[in-house]
């Protein structure tokens, strides 16, 4: 019983740690967004917010201020202390519920997200809250719940622009979920191939299966489809139909203010961070350092963390993983400040007429390729088909 | 001149035929048909001086053969026009049959440019500080007929500025264009010749004769007359630019002469009062004292709040208290000649609802035989016409005092009259309940139980009947203090409070419809259609009353109906 209690306590502590990391990553993504936007536009970005005390430290303090390090704090405090309006015409329950629904799935999905590895004796184990077998399904399932926040929020606000935002969002999310789900099938086919043992749908196994080559390299089209769908699922430009400031004022969150808006806002960035992490895991080899091309003697290249002591290798793998993730977060912003928004019909056309068929073709093509690969190189290990 | 009204002749102005009265001054004749002849020195009410030369026009008559008297025809068979070789001043000419005028010819234009150039030689270009700017004839004609640029490079004359001609008139000599209107006014109209020109040539200067000053009660008319900013009113000087001011037609309440005025206000503040031309009442003149009357609007002793027993109250509380007080015992009313006809009519309606004797005070003072009569109220005759008065009132309210002493009157409803001044001692007044409706505080208001503030003549509209039995309208010039109602509305409210029925504020046209039916002299009068120059009423019923007014400029104290008037000049 004591060990169970201890287990629970440790899990809770880990969970809190995860939440803290993800939330601060989301918060700093907001800062990153503002910085990237300003850089692209030839500006400097937030560089004024100072924290009393720390900013008084010579050299370092002003530098941090210049980087805008304290800006997310100021933003958060601002969200907290702003007047919290509750418009008279809204459906109060759903109006208040929607921001929570928007944030919770994003935080839930991180439960099955491996962020690094450590050595338990000789066995490589993932740094993860729950190493479940159905990891990717879990992420897809909860990711798909995120749409409710937007739909309910847009509907509960009971006014026309939020409503349009909500309607657009639901259609867009459903369309791209399909393409997204199908684009990862080749990855799973590969991960569950004969070379990789009995992997299942666990994300850790997917990372392990990419030591030879990152899947993004030889599955560029599924990777691309996944990335595009990811942009659509997180409502990022060029797919931010639910918000589309130019036509819908603020889209689904037009009627929201203060901390409720803040939840939507942070939820979007949390989605973005988690999405980037998932992409890294699925197509970019997770925390694998560099591909080793399946050559045994080069194994140290793909997994140098295993050779290090745990106290060094574990954190390094996490840091490397976060680094890769942050690159994709940056890519999100880079794309946002480069591409214009699609028209709604273009979004639908792209989703249904190009991405879904493309993903289907990829599934078939990679199934054949992997099947042939198996026959050619690992025929004897292929599971026999019994009656 | 009497027959000139009917005797129309045809004259030709710039090639167009116009029908104008025979023998009319050419400037006026042209103005009556919409052709402007610029002029400075000419004024329709003054003698012709002809010294500004601005009204130069080309004149001609149809040619006739001297010997035979036959018309001289040109090749087309049209009678030739014999144009005068030089231009002539229009102001010194009169219309005659067949007269031909050129007001827009090159010669005329050149003449005007020349005159303007001479006038501007020494005229300072200080329009920004000149109070006349905006209504300055020189400014207007300089833009309309001037050359547009100056050829004058020498130093301008320096003349005295800010000369005090009199207590109310300031002269800026540099601006004077020597039109002599003011001199002629003092001479001919005011009959107080104190102004004259000294020095010669370009040093010609307007001054008062030694030992005199321009202190007549009509001195400010010279300011109105002055076509430029030379003569300015010391009161109005540098107060406000005239283009901001909105003129509203009103009637002077100084005396029963009923001088027509224009009240100039901006954003609810009155800045000056000027006479409004009415050839049947005041021509274009006005007394200085009447021009200062606007100060009463913002006077210190102005009443602005309803008071019941000395405490501030709402209008509802005040009217309720009025009803209570009026029901305690016999009521007497003290009306006033300061009330408009409409208000007097409403008072009559009140007196019918709550019967009581109506008293007036006859305010008599000095008259000047011109535009200030001996009766110091503008509308005593309204009281007669509305039936409040049967005969002329006394100067003092002795009858009411006697009644008070005997205890026959418990409540007095007083309309702006100072009862203490009217001969009722304060101790006696304290025995009665006094309901006072008035605009300013006085000895009586200290005693009154209910004080109801009213609007001044500038803040309400209505009509007065002047000494000639001429019904004249005045319009609201500025909004009254917040919360105050016109006296007609107040009376309507009191009546409805007493009767216990619903209150609606009566409008003047409404009241006039009632009065037209009830009062013989008002039959057929519509408020909206009372002309700007007033409407003469049938005064035969009051012909025998001994009014105190003496002969004025347009008034004969007639035993005969007052309508027949003879022009003083």
């Amino acid at each position, binding site marked *: 019983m004591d060990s169970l209690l201890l287990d629970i306590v440790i899990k809770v502590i880990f969970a809190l740690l995860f939440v803290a990391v993800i939330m601060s990553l989301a918060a700093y993504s907001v800062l990153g967004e503002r910085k990237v936007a300003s850089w692209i536009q030839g500006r400097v970005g937030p560089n004024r917010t100072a924290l009393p005390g720390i900013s008084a430290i010579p050299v370092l303090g002003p530098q941090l201020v210049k980087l805008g390090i304290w800006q997310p704090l100021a933003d958060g405090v601002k969200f907290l202390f702003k007047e919290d309006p509750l418009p008279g015409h809204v*459906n109060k329950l*759903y109006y208040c519920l929607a921001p929570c629904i928007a944030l919770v799935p994003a935080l839930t999905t991180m439960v099955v997200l491996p962020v690094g590895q450590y050595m338990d004796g000789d066995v490589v184990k993932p740094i993860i809250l729950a190493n*479940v*077998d*159905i990891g990717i*399904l*879990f992420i*897809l*399932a*909860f*990711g*798909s*719940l995120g*749409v*409710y926040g937007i*739909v*309910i929020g847009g*509907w509960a606000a009971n006014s026309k622009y939020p*409503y349009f935002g*909500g*309607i657009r969002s*639901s*259609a867009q*999310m*459903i369309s791209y*979920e399909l393409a997204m789900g199908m684009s990862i099938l080749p990855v799973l086919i590969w991960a*569950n191939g004969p070379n990789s*043992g*009995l*992997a*299942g*749908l666990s994300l850790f196994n997917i990372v392990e299966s990419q030591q030879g080559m990152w899947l993004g390299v030889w599955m560029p089209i599924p990777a691309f489809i996944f990335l595009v769908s990811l942009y659509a699922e997180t409502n990022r430009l060029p797919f931010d139909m639910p918000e589309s400031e130019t036509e819908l004022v603020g889209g689904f969150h037009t009627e929201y203010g203060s901390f409720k808006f803040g939840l939507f806002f942070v939820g979007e960035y949390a989605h973005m961070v988690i999405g980037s992490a998932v992409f890294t895991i699925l197509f970019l080899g997770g925390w694998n350092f560099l591909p080793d091309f399946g050559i045994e003697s080069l194994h140290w290249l793909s997994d140098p963390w295993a050779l290090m002591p745990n106290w060094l290798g574990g954190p390094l793998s996490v840091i490397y993983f976060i680094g890769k993730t942050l690159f994709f977060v940056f890519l999100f912003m880079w794309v946002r400040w480069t591409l214009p928004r699609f*028209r709604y*019909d273009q979004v639908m056309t792209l989703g249904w007429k190009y991405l879904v068929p493309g993903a289907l073709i990829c599934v078939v093509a990679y199934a054949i390729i992997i099947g042939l690969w198996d026959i050619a190189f690992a025929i004897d290990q*292929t*599971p*026999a*088909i*019994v*009656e | 001149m009497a027959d000139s009204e009917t005797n129309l002749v045809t004259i030709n102005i710039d090639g167009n035929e116009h029908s104008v009265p025979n023998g009319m001054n050419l400037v006026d004749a042209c103005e009556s048909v919409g052709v402007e002849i610029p002029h400075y020195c000419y004024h329709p009410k003054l003698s012709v001086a002809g010294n500004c030369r601005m009204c130069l026009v080309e004149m001609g008559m149809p040619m006739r053969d001297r010997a035979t008297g036959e018309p001289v025809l040109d090749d087309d068979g049209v009678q030739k026009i014999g144009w005068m070789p030089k231009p002539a001043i229009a102001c010194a000419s009169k219309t005659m049959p067949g007269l031909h005028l050129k007001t827009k010819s090159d010669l005329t234009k050149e003449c005007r440019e020349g005159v303007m150039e001479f006038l501007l030689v020494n005229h300072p270009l200080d329009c920004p500080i000149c109070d006349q700017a905006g209504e300055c004839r020189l400014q207007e004609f300089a833009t309309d007929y001037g050359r547009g640029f100056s050829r004058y490079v020498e130093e301008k004359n320096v003349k005295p500025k800010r000369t005090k001609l009199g207590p109310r008139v300031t002269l800026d000599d540099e601006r004077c264009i020597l039109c002599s209107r003011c001199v002629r006014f003092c001479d001919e109209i005011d009959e107080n010749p104190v102004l004259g020109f000294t020095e010669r040539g370009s040093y010609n200067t307007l001054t008062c004769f030694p030992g005199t000053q321009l202190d007549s009660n009509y001195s400010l008319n010279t300011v109105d007359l002055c076509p430029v900013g030379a003569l300015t009113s010391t009161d109005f000087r540098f107060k406000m630019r005239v283009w901001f001011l909105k003129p509203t037609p009103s009637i002077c309440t100084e005396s029963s002469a009923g001088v027509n005025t224009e009240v100039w206000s901006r954003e609810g503040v009155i800045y000056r009062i000027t006479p409004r031309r009415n050839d049947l009442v005041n021509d274009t003149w006005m007394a200085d004292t009447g021009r200062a009357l606007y100060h009463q609007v913002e006077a210190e002793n102005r009443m602005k709040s309803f008071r019941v027993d000395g405490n501030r109250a709402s209008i509802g509380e005040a009217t309720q208290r009025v009803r209570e007080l009026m029901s305690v015992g016999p009521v007497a009313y003290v009306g006033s000649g300061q009330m408009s006809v409409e208000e007097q009519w409403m008072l009559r309606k009140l007196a019918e609802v709550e019967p009581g004797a109506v008293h007036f005070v006859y305010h008599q003072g000095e008259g000047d035989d011109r535009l200030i009569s001996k009766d110091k109220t503008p509308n005593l005759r309204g009281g007669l016409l509305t039936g409040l008065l049967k005969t002329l009132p006394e100067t003092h309210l002795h009858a009411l005092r006697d009644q008070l002493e005997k205890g026959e009157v418990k409540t007095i409803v007083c309309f702006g009259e100072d009862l203490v001044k009217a001969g009722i001692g304060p101790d006696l007044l304290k025995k009665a309940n006094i309901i006072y409706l008035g605009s300013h505080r006085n000895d009586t208001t200290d005693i009154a139980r209910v004080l109801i503030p009213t609007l001044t003549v500038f803040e309400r509209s209505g009509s007065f009947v002047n000494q000639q039995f001429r019904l004249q309208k005045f319009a609201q010039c500025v909004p009254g203090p917040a919360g105050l109602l016109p006296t007609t509305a107040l009376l309507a409210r009191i009546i409805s409070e007493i009767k216990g029925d619903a209150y609606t504020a009566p409008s003047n046209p409404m009241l006039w419809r009632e009065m037209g039916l009830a009062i013989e002299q008002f039959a057929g009068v519509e408020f909206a259609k009372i002309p700007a120059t007033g409407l003469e009423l049938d005064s035969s019923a009051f012909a025998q009353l001994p009014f105190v007014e003496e002969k004025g400029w347009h008034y004969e104290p007639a035993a005969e109906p007052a309508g027949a008037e003879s022009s003083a000049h």
Partner: protein
Amino acid sequence: MADFLFFLFSALTVLSAFLVTVSRNAVNGAMFMILSFVGMACLFLLLEAYFLAALQVLVYAGAVMVLFLFIVMLLDADKARSVRPDRLTIVAATVGGLMLISGLAYVTFGPSAAPSTELPAITEMPQNATAENIPFTTASRSFGYGLFTKYMLPFQVTGFLLLIAMIGVIVLSKKIDASGDEPAKQKVAKS
């Protein structure tokens, strides 16, 4: 612990399912339905059917109900008048419901009910498992293996059935006018 969770989630499922039927507001109904699905997913979790639980959330809560909600919001179902069912419908529904309940009771408690036996031990996928000896485990791989081997035919038939349904829906929803032609496509301005 497991019992407590079972009762908790069953209560959640049943209660929200009940609320779906009685709630007047269509959006409320849809939300309760989602709650009901989530509750059911939790029950699947208690049965260690993780794959099924994830699919339940993914397909029903994540996709189907979003479409439902989409339609409900689009039609503004709040304003729909409440229809009082006629007598026949009430009788039929009552009879049908009673039959269903009695059937369920019979199956659960009747003589032919499945005996209350221990469930087979569900284990982790052994590390050394090969294709031949994949046991029945909680792992999705074993699930997939079963699907493509033992239950191949039902799986294919179900898939075919779904395909037919899909084609049927498309055919029905495509309006074809009397002449047999498809209605002219609306021109979309090309930007």
